[in-house]
């Protein structure tokens, strides 16, 4: 297969001289993996028809039919950032697809000073369980910036979708009927700081509907709550099919031996992902089965806590030549994709997790996956059917051994996992959910 994108060409050029690497050279290379130093140019979002070969023509035709009835309807998406973060990434893909099916969708970003974003960052953490003392000053800053944005923006669309807590108070004093207001909450509200949630809840309950990413992230509300799983784009750099030559080149670059089983965890260096626990599990498993461990992550260069965790991970790994630790910049999507595809098993042994999109990525690639039963992971991994759930280092070690020695069962898990993602966690499913919700809301189906 020919390289498909400019960045893939760059990657191939960078990797072109290392098709065969001897063992000592491989170990040497590990110490200083080469990755390009600046992000590649952004890739334009795919068009709907490009998904036909992945999800099937019938599914795309269904989407188009659903959209026909909504032709000319208008939607506004509002969030707090245009770049960086999962919400902006998702909107960058969703908005063009909705416009393509003639549901005219605008995307606006709220503005605010440092004071506002400091308050909203604190709210964000507090809503996910951190300690926080809500002051009158914080309330005033939050409300003032929401009011200023409300005065600046116009809400003439049929459906207004507000993403996350930062702009949640835009609904206050806005004209509601006949348009419908939806609050899309991307964070876990299962254990919120009561003061902050008590402050935000009256705004949330003015909406016509709320959307959460997992059943377990919700609160009891007086408005209808819908479940929209986060999704991945199967055509993105992170998830598209790769030529095996490229996968081999990436493995050579990082000193990974594809002739032996590869166990991989992809996640930033964060204690919530239990990277040290993964190394302990791997060391226990390796007493019985030959394998290598790849710990591929990032966040150590710009985050002091990440650097501390990386240090702990390196200490835990010691001098074990079978453990390969990669601290990658955030734009290495193609390399991450290649590492996942090269892996025999993927581990995501989180002890706290959001939805866990790295699990979705692993399942999409048909990889047998072992993951902690936290956050949104149980939505993706049905134990022993689409992967395996673990609750301890020992459980993780056992499952690594078991899956490496039962390849038929592991293969079946991988196949089921792939189908599960195809059915529930792809961008096209997300478009279908939005079209359905808009249709239901405009037909007066909620509240």
């Amino acid at each position: 297969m020919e390289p498909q994108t400019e960045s893939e060409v760059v990657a191939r050029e960078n990797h072109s001289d290392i098709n065969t690497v001897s063992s000592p050279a491989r170990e040497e290379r590990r110490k200083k993996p080469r990755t390009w130093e600046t992000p590649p140019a952004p890739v334009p979002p795919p068009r709907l028809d490009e998904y036909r070969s992945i999800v099937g023509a019938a599914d795309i035709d269904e989407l188009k039919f659903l959209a026909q009835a909504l032709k000319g309807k208008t939607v506004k998406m509002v969030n707090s950032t245009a770049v960086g973060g999962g919400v902006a990434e998702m909107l960058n893909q969703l908005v063009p697809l909705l416009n393509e099916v003639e549901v005219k969708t605008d995307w606006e970003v709220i503005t605010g000073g440092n004071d506002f974003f400091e308050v909203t960052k604190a709210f964000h953490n507090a809503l996910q369980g951190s300690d926080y003392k809500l002051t009158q000053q914080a309330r005033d800053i939050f409300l003032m910036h929401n009011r200023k944005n409300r005065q600046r923006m116009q809400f003439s669309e049929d459906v207004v979708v507000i993403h996350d807590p930062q702009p949640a108070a835009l609904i206050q004093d806005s004209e509601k009927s006949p348009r419908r207001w939806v609050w899309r909450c991307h964070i876990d509200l299962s254990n919120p700081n009561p003061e902050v949630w008590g402050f935000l809840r009256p705004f949330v309950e003015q909406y016509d509907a709320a959307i959460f990413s997992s059943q377990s992230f919700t609160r009891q509300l007086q408005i209808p709550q819908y479940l929209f799983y986060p999704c991945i784009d199967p055509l993105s750099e992170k998830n598209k099919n790769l030529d095996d030559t490229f996968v081999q080149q990436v493995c050579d670059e990082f000193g990974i031996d594809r002739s032996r089983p590869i166990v991989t965890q992809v996640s930033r260096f964060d204690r919530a992902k239990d990277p040290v626990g993964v190394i302990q599990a791997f060391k226990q498993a390796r007493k019985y089965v030959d394998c290598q461990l790849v710990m591929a992550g990032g966040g150590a260069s710009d985050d002091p806590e990440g650097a501390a965790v990386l240090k702990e991970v390196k200490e835990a790994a010691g001098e074990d030549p079978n453990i390969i630790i990669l601290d990658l910049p955030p734009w290495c999507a193609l390399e991450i994709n290649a590492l996942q595809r090269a892996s025999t098993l993927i581990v995501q042994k989180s002890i706290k997790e959001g939805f866990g999109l790295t699990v979705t990525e692993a399942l999409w690639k048909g990889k047998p996956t072992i993951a902690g039963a936290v956050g949104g992971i149980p939505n993706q991994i049905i134990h022993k059917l689409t992967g395996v759930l673990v609750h301890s280092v020992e459980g993780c070690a056992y499952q690594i051994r078991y899956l490496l020695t039962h390849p038929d069962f592991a293969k079946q898990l991988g196949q089921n996992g792939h189908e599960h993602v195809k059915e529930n966690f792809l961008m096209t499913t997300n478009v279908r959910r939005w079209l359905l919700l808009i249709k239901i809301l405009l037909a007066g189906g909620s509240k």
Partner: protein
Amino acid sequence: MSSAVAPNLPHTSVKPFYFNTSAHLLRITQQKANTLAEFLDALRECPEGSIFQHSFQTLEEHHFIREGFSNDFAHWVLSACNEPSLAEGLASVDVREFTSVAELRERFVQIVENFLSRTSAAATRSARETFYFCASDSIVIPTTFVARTLREFAEGLRSVSVHSIHHHFIEARLRIKLMSNDFSQWLLEDIGLTEAARQLNRIDIYTGTLEDVRNQIVRIVERALI
């Protein structure tokens, strides 16, 4: 109805079969359960849409699993409550034996009640994970496939999505209130193929994927074409 069968053309109906499909949006309801006692209460009180979601609809969402998955209730009872005998009882409920959600709910309630009457200590034991009752908001969507002949019918069966197969073959009984499905009804009433209609109703939906079910349906229809 057999009177609708075209008299001169073999396997041609004057009443075409329109392939539809349905799309579902998941709503999170107020009910949840952390113990089997709470589960039983919620089973009794939840909206009918929740019973539909966790039995009929979940089969569609997990259509790719060949064995070991029947409904969300059985799965939770096994994985979160570690009660295999209750899980087996719940898993044995075949949605095709019910033409109304109310009857189906009654069956699930009866199984849990019987279990708890024998094993009362299990009622208040905490489950490892909460069961959240969801419900579906559904919309029926037409497809581009229409069959006027048996050959076109087979072609439609091969081409539509598995969601359409689920809509006509599994969900249909709640709509037509018969222990049958849309495909069998059309074969029986509009084409006059009694045996093929009967064979379709004997396909086991719990021991294969929905794609396997589609293939079995296609094979039966193709045999009728010969």
